[in-house]
């Protein structure tokens, strides 16, 4: 009995909702959707692939439009970027600035976001979020003046400070919406059980918000890694970060396209690898607070 009825119900249940109502329009939409999605993916990925291909071409091949896709790949550009231009130092600089500024911003930002969320300090939050709205140039002029008088321009400290300035509002924004959506009860019951409020924050809330902290940390790292304007003004020859170092391949006379594309690839690859492994955190960070209305 059961053996006979089972396949029947399954086959009956599957096509019914989609199949019976307007089958033609539905199928047309399905085809359209596949085509549209492929177009979207191509539009987003093709330029990056083009950059990657060019980074493996000699400059002669780049100028030969006949060799758009068929060419003999060469690692010469990468050797040039990594050895002759000493990109390892710039990679380290970028990494160090992004890492330290992220850690310090988390130390300042997570407790602040917690307090602002729990005690609904919306005006105070606005002060921190103002930093997102102000154009960076208006801060750079005074910073540059003060820090160059303190002989700090060209050091890591100034770069890290300026990148923290980008990271902190981001972290506060993400963590506030994270704490907002977290139930208070756990913390309260921990206090009833004898923990102090700070103890409850440290031993209950903090471990529970690892997901949110990871989100905030990854996004802050990405933004710091990609930051250009602050580093352009505040970095020195020893602290140059990758986005600034790319310009070494552009001169007034000519552009070393192969080298430039290899350099651009070297900048983007690490951050993309991080992004691929941490997809869900990035998405939840980018959409934090977006659906509250």
């Amino acid at each position: 009995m059961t053996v006979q009825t089972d396949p029947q119900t399954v086959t009956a249940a599957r096509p019914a909702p989609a199949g019976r109502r307007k089958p033609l329009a539905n199928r047309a939409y399905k085809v359209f959707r596949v085509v549209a999605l492929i177009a979207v993916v191509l539009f987003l990925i093709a330029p990056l692939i083009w950059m990657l291909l060019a980074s493996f071409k000699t400059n002669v091949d780049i100028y030969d439009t006949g060799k758009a896709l068929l060419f003999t790949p060469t690692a010469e550009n990468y050797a040039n970027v990594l050895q002759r231009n000493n990109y390892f130092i710039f990679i380290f600089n970028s990494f160090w600035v992004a890492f330290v500024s992220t850690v310090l911003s988390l130390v300042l930002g997570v407790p602040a976001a917690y307090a602002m969320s729990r005690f609904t300090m919306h005006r105070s939050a606005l002060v921190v979020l103002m930093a997102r709205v102000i154009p960076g140039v208006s801060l750079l002029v005074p910073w540059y003046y003060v820090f160059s008088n303190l002989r700090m321009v060209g050091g890591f400290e100034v770069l890290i400070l300026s990148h923290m300035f980008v990271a902190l509002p981001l972290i506060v924004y993400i963590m506030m919406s994270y704490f907002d959506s977290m139930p208070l009860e756990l913390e309260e019951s921990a206090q009833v059980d004898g923990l102090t409020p700070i103890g409850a924050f440290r031993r209950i809330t903090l471990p529970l918000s690892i997901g949110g902290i990871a989100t905030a940390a990854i996004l802050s790292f990405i933004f710091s890694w990609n930051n250009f304007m602050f580093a352009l003004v505040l970095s020195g020859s020893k602290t140059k970060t990758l986005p600034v170092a790319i310009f070494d391949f552009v001169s007034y006379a000519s552009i070393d396209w192969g080298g430039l594309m290899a350099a651009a690839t070297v900048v983007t690859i690490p951050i993309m690898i991080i992004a691929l492994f941490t997809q869900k955190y990035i998405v939840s960070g980018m959409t934090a607070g977006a659906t509250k209305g």
Partner: protein
Amino acid sequence: MSVLTPPRSAQPGAPSGRNAGAGSGARENFSAWANRHRKWLFAAPAMIFVGVLIIFPLAWTLYLSLTDSQGSVRAASDFVGLQNYLTVLADAERFWPAVGRTLTFTGVALVCEVVLGMCIALLLWRPFRGEKWVRVAILLPLVATPVAVGMMWRLIFDPNIGFANQLLGMIGIPPQPWLSGQDTALGTTIFMDVWQWTPMVVLILLAGLTSLSEEPDEAARMDGANSFQRFFYITLPLMMPTVIVAILLRGIDALKTFDILYATKGKGGGSFHEVETLNVYAYGLSFDYNQYGLSSAVLILFFMIIVGSMWLLTMRKKAVSK
């Protein structure tokens, strides 16, 4: 009864369970003090950090905008009152075109990104096979370093060797100057911005779509509404608050765009200033020409434009949310 057993946190200085044995008196007092004032203890460091790095520079920018400061010869700078503002506002050569470009760039990019973003979000709304791959594709432009992205487009849009013109050639359209043309440069940079940031709008709108409740849509379906009617009369109105959040978040950054403009066209937005927005203009005045007084006036005006547009949008959002 409850008066006799208050929660421990309410008793200042009461020994907490964990510290009762070990803690000295001073430590107990500090811990109790810290717990009582945790609100500001937690919030203040971040606020002081941001405050010092914002308020002092902003005040100084305001002061500089009233002087004729020229950087290195700062000793000679005099108080000139509103002179810089008058100079800037009368400047039809650089300032007003820059305002126009800033608003054009932001406006056109935002419209394209929101319309395209909505279309893509609707495509992605219901689950399908290969969803994971599409999500990866959406994430890649978002995390790519903007300066590197600018360089990448520079090669693709190169008039002679670029892929864009090869593509046009295949369908029989003559080559375009793209970035090097005086009229086409701004449009090309807008295109780059759309490529990089539409995915962010997609993510935000998709989050909004998935949190919508199904019932209004179902009810409309029962009443026989077709998909277009359901989108324009049900989904879109419900999505308006999310759309405005996306516009706010994206708009702030679009107004301040610097990286791709500087990476593709260099100082001054190109030799004819064809992509010089307010941000690029102010940067050039400050760091290429050391005209600190003038650039500060530009920045104050720029800041007012940003805050003004944000305020308008927030008002609109409140109206929609009601």
